[in-house]
């Protein structure tokens, strides 16, 4: 009886066994009712062991004020208590019930639904305070996505509020970089990187002059292929004679510098003429080549090369 839980199971079994012997049961019930009402307890001490010499007075009125304040038992806060992650499961069941309730509402294509920044897994774990496995959270996010696809004109308030609780604080998708513009002197600036080179290009409308680090194109890139590379965005759009290029390239070798200029030039050109984007994309001028030299590892000759195997 020292266990903190109300060990009522014993009562249950007892009464079940005793369901036939009604007299015993009735006394038992009377006992338990006596026990349960706190007011009566004062006068019923020793009832079972010794006979009370005095006649028992009638019970006083029940003090309901007291009854609501008296702690009766300790119970779990959530019906999913024994699963080990009650909050997560409560959220999941809540979302599933909402999803089922509003299943008939019209939905839009996933692409047309508003973009929502749900909690990242770590954030969600902090939010519920339980270590939720990745897969289970992914399934929950699937339900969120489904709810988010409900036609915006028809979303019930309940869904709106529920979805809001799963959003990351702030609005990550609202922070878009301001579109680059041509400055007041007509210059567009673009930056690009390739291998270890980085280039900054200033593009002005002009007659087709190209200056790389203060040198002409031919001086900067003696190889024809590199010159072709560097001016490729202008060439593929046939704008070689419409713009003047002023580029600053640092680091890397000749090829890297030339291709860094390509990227920077293409980006600068897009500031002048955004409509060229598909063309430049097709021409491969604004595709970033993110490859870098792989580091050398210990035990290897190069990044991956192993020393030749020698018998003994």
């Amino acid at each position, binding site marked *: *009886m020292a266990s*903190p*839980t*109300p*060990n*009522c*199971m*014993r*009562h*249950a079994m*007892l009464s*079940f066994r*005793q369901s036939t*012997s009604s007299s015993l049961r009735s006394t038992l019930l009377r006992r*338990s*009712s006596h*026990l*349960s*009402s*706190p007011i009566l307890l*004062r006068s*019923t*001490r020793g009832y079972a062991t010794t006979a009370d010499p005095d006649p028992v007075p009638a019970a006083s009125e029940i003090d309901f*004020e007291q*009854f*609501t304040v008296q702690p*009766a*038992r*300790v*119970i*779990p*806060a959530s*019906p*999913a*208590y*024994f*699963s080990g992650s009650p909050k997560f499961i409560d959220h999941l069941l809540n979302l599933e019930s909402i999803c089922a309730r509003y299943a*008939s509402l*019209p939905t839009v294509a996933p692409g047309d639904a508003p973009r929502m920044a749900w909690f990242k897994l770590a954030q969600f774990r902090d939010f519920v*305070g339980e270590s939720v496995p990745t897969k289970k959270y992914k399934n929950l996010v699937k339900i969120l996505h489904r709810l988010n696809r409900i036609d*915006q*004109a028809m979303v019930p308030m309940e869904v709106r509020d529920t979805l809001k609780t799963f959003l990351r604080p702030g609005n990550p998708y*609202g922070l878009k970089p*301001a*579109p680059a513009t*041509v400055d*007041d002197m007509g210059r567009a600036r673009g930056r690009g990187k390739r291998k270890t080179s980085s280039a900054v290009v200033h593009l002005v409308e002009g007659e087709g002059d190209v200056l790389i680090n203060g040198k002409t194109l031919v001086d900067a890139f003696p190889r024809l292929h590199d010159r*072709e*590379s560097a001016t490729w965005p202008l*060439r*593929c*759009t*046939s704008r070689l004679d419409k*713009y003047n290029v002023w580029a600053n390239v640092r680091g890397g070798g000749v090829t890297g510098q030339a291709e860094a200029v390509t990227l920077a030039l293409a980006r600068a050109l897009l*500031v002048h*003429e*955004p*409509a060229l984007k598909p*063309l430049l994309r097709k021409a*491969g001028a604004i595709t970033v080549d993110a490859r870098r030299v792989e580091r050398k590892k210990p035990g290897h000759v190069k990044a991956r090369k192993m020393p030749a195997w020698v018998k003994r």
Partner: protein
Amino acid sequence: MIVRQLCARQSRQLLAVNRQTRTLTRFYSTETTVQTPVTARPATEPPRAAPISVRRDAKEAWKKREAQKQKFHQLGSEVADSYQPEELIRNPPKPSDITLELLLASQTHLGHSTSRWNPQNSRYIFGIREGVHIISLDVTAAYLRRAAKVVEEVAARGGLILFVGTRKGHKRYVVRAAELAKGYHIFERWIPGSLTNGHQILGHCETKVVNGMDQEIPDLKETQSERSALKPDLVVCMNPLENVVLLHECGLNNVPTIGVIDTDADATRVTYPIPSNDDSLRSVGVIAGVLGRAGEAGQLRRMEAARSGHLTYPALNPEDLKIEKNVSDDPKIANTVSEEPKIANAVLEEPKVASTVSDEK
């Protein structure tokens, strides 16, 4: 590499040449700048929700469509007394609704392959048909009624009833049963040690102190932080075969269990077996529904008693809550604390009565 690059460049150039029809007019013109954005940025408007009138219209249209759909569904002949699978969740059968027909229709009689049987279950088995054991329907009905009674009594005495169904389609039935019986549910996995090592595993899960009307007493919330984990007073297991660990822990902790025992399961693992098919979702749905309804009836009884001021179970010992320190602050609690030894005594006396009663019998 040069050759490759050259090829790539050349092919790209060819592509670009082919597409020159698409290039802008600027290509042919001598002037530039057609749509070049200027430094002065226009104020961008944040995307707003659809205007109210549009939303209302869409809602009206949808409501109309739904109404029409319902109207069409009502057309045609009416089929009475047909089986609706969703009714098992929406409106589960009560213990008084248990009939042999219901059990037969929900496939409770289909046991396992005869080569899989556990001879302990021979008293529940009616016969063999097409290589499987057939469980006797009247035995199932009797044991199901007994289990329902147990659930009802436990619920009426404020016990914690845990419904466990960890197989694939059990989730909705288990959750619904727990919802009806105001119990607790597990539908994913029983974490081994939740009973024997409860403080480690369930220690972080929140509990609350409630009064006789099941209303939370928020003042006592902070006293709950160092309590050991709670244990259920009755476990209802829908698939005992997969939850051997759970049943073992229940046995160690003296927690009674109700289990759906198929012909290949060990009936001695559970306190109250219900011989039935445990593979069919429909039979599991019926059993969970009946037990959930029984729990609901028990809870109703308990609340009725609470409304008339009776507790059907021994009240919490305030000593356990460790509230002596702040007793003086709260006059109401202080009142009750003075009686706590009596309560403790009374509670201690209870099992004595129980033992004498059982001896007499």
